[in-house]
């Protein structure tokens, strides 16, 4: 049969952000998928090297509108790693609380979008309505519905009041009820089973091979959650108290991904309650002086998976290098394993099921005139070596990089 090429994007109702899928079809079956991103590159890493250490959290917060606390969280963990300090307990608990609240509202947002993608607009509107309760609680806790600015190097930026925490408890209770209702009404619906089960299966081997993270890999049976494998802040204590559990499922299809997210919402609600009940008193941050020379890594389990930040300091008031790796960067290529052989209707859903965030992911933009430019691995290595040499010259230090 003749192959048809179906373009999805750069602007398409399925996609919240500009990116370009090319589907190669045989009839309704997709045989190959090609993805082109780069419409959204904003140069955050470069911008970060022009800001002081304390300004960067505000910048990286704006990498993503939904997981807006994940990036600053990973960043401050990286800088604290560089400084080798720890935030005081109350500061840690506040940061973890905001991180979990964010996971709840992000998963509910995805649930709504997933409903919209399969033409179930009622789910879309209902999920987003229940998400409002969480956003209200976030506003009470931090003063903002979405960009919280609660993370700073050395602790939390603002304290949370008891009144706000009581309000949050009420929101969590009512949200738990509605999420459980959702679990019954949507996840147990036979039509949903028909539409989602067995679709776009990502096997455990593939998930590991593509280094998928977060709710993309855990439904495939990979037990990997930074909160558990490398506990930071309040997560270690909460794990010891058995306040929550990591959700691991076996099937790896879209249904498992949806179910995992709903179950994670319920786990996060438990964890938030535990954090509020066990919120310690005391200082919320430590005083941080000059940042010495060195490097640090921070990772945080964002709603979409592990987000990784690397910072390097030369002793000045700005990071000399700041590297961001968003979870979508590793989750995105899994479509190569899960899409071929599926129908168009399912491919749209499978690509949405990893909850992609393209603007978080984009790290490079190549501008050419009237010509499509494909960068091979050799090109990328060459570019990377050139950049390293440039940085070496700037900081006046030589690494043992082999000459190309």
């Amino acid at each position, binding site marked *: 049969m003749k192959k*048809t*090429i*179906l*373009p999805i994007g750069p602007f*398409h*109702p*399925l996609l919240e952000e500009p990116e370009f899928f090319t589907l190669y*079809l045989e009839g*309704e079956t997709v045989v190959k998928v090609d993805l082109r991103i780069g419409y959204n590159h904003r140069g955050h890493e470069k911008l970060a090297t022009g800001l002081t250490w304390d300004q960067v959290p505000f910048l990286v917060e704006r990498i993503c509108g939904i997981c807006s606390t994940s990036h600053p969280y990973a960043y401050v963990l990286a800088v604290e790693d560089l400084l080798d300090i720890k935030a005081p307990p109350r500061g840690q608990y506040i940061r973890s609380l905001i991180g979990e609240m964010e996971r709840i509202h992000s998963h509910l947002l995805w649930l709504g979008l997933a*409903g*919209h*993608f*399969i*033409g*179930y*607009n*009622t*789910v*879309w*509107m*209902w999920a987003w*309505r229940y998400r409002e309760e969480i956003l209200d609680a976030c506003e009470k806790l931090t003063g903002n519905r979405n960009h919280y600015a609660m993370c700073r190097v050395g602790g939390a930026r603002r304290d949370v009041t008891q009144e706000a925490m009581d309000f949050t408890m009420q929101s969590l209770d009512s949200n738990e009820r509605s999420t459980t209702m959702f679990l019954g009404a949507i996840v147990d619906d036979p*039509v*949903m089973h*028909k*539409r989602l089960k067995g679709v776009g299966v990502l096997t455990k081997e593939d998930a590991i091979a593509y280094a998928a993270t977060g709710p993309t890999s855990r439904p495939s049976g990979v037990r990997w959650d930074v909160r558990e494998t490398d506990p930071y802040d309040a997560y270690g204590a909460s794990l010891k108290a058995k306040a929550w559990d990591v959700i691991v499922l076996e099937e790896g299809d879209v249904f498992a991904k949806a179910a995992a997210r709903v179950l994670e919402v319920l786990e996060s609600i438990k964890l938030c309650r535990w954090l509020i009940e066990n919120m310690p008193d005391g200082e919320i941050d430590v005083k941080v002086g000059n940042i010495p020379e060195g490097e640090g890594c921070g990772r945080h389990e964002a709603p979409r998976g592990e987000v990784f930040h690397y910072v390097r300091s030369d002793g000045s008031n700005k990071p000399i290098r700041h590297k961001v790796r968003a979870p979508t960067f590793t989750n995105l290529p899994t479509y190569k394993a899960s899409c071929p052989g599926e*129908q*168009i*209707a*399912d491919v*749209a859903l499978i690509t949405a099921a990893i909850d992609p965030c393209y603007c978080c992911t984009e790290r490079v933009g190549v501008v050419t005139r009237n010509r499509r430019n494909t960068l091979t691995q050799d090109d990328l290595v060459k570019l990377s070596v050139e950049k390293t040499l440039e940085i070496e010259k700037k900081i006046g230090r030589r690494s043992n990089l082999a000459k190309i």
Partner: protein
Amino acid sequence: MEVFNYLVFPGFLFATVAGLLTWWLDRKVTARVQYRVGPPWYQTFADVVKLMGKEVLIPENARKTGFLLAPIVALSASALVATMIGVFNMNWSAGFVGDIIVFWYILTIPSIMLILGAAASGGPLSSVGSSREIKMLLAYEVPFIIVITMIIFKADTLSFGGIIKYQAGHGPILYSVSGVIGFIVALLCVQAKLGLVPFDAPEAETELGGGILYDYSGAALGAFKLAKAMLFYTLPIFMISLFWGGVQIGNGLGILWAVLKYLLIIVLITLIRNTNPRLRIDQIMKFFWGKLTLLAIVAFILSVLGI
């Protein structure tokens, strides 16, 4: 008189107004189900008027004649079927032998025109949409024909007016086991004919960005939307006529009853559309050719047995 019937009542103008109001009702109920406020009553009129005033863009690869003719034919076919159903409901003896077959035939024309127009536009998304529409047309016509045949056998007449007259004498067909099963099958076929969720795979705005309507714009798109709105009014009336005793005007509270039945069917359609996800095209075909055809045959056998 025929010209008046076709253009004003119960044809083009009346069907347009009724169809757009029905469409608004659908949107309003949908909005209330989803905790939204919903549009004001004139929203659908405003939409169509605005579309009519917009520029019609013709894609470079399109076959112009087919592309532009399709919406006009679809619109006139919808108006024709609205006229005939209205007139035959008012005057049972106005029909002719076999007019029910003509109805069935004309009711497929809007879908066929959608297929033709989308294929003529030459776009990839439209062509996927049109191939889906062909499959769906083939799928839902099978149970639909069986159900209509069941009614023809039951009423022992091939004329539309005759079926209503039969029901006036023997009570509505719906009030029997076979009638209820047939009604459910026909309702789902109507849902597919209207291209609503769960059977909106040809349009599928989140997969194909509008599918069959992807390359249409301006007045041509408006004409298709109007045709669909008219069908939205016509098909429930068609259902009432076949199953529920028709619209009996001369009979005291007849109009009121007809309106209530009509609203009930619309609300049913809207609720089905709001409590289901979109099915894949292969699932749609399996559903119509498998379960629904089976149900239709069961209804047919029951009706032959007189149940």
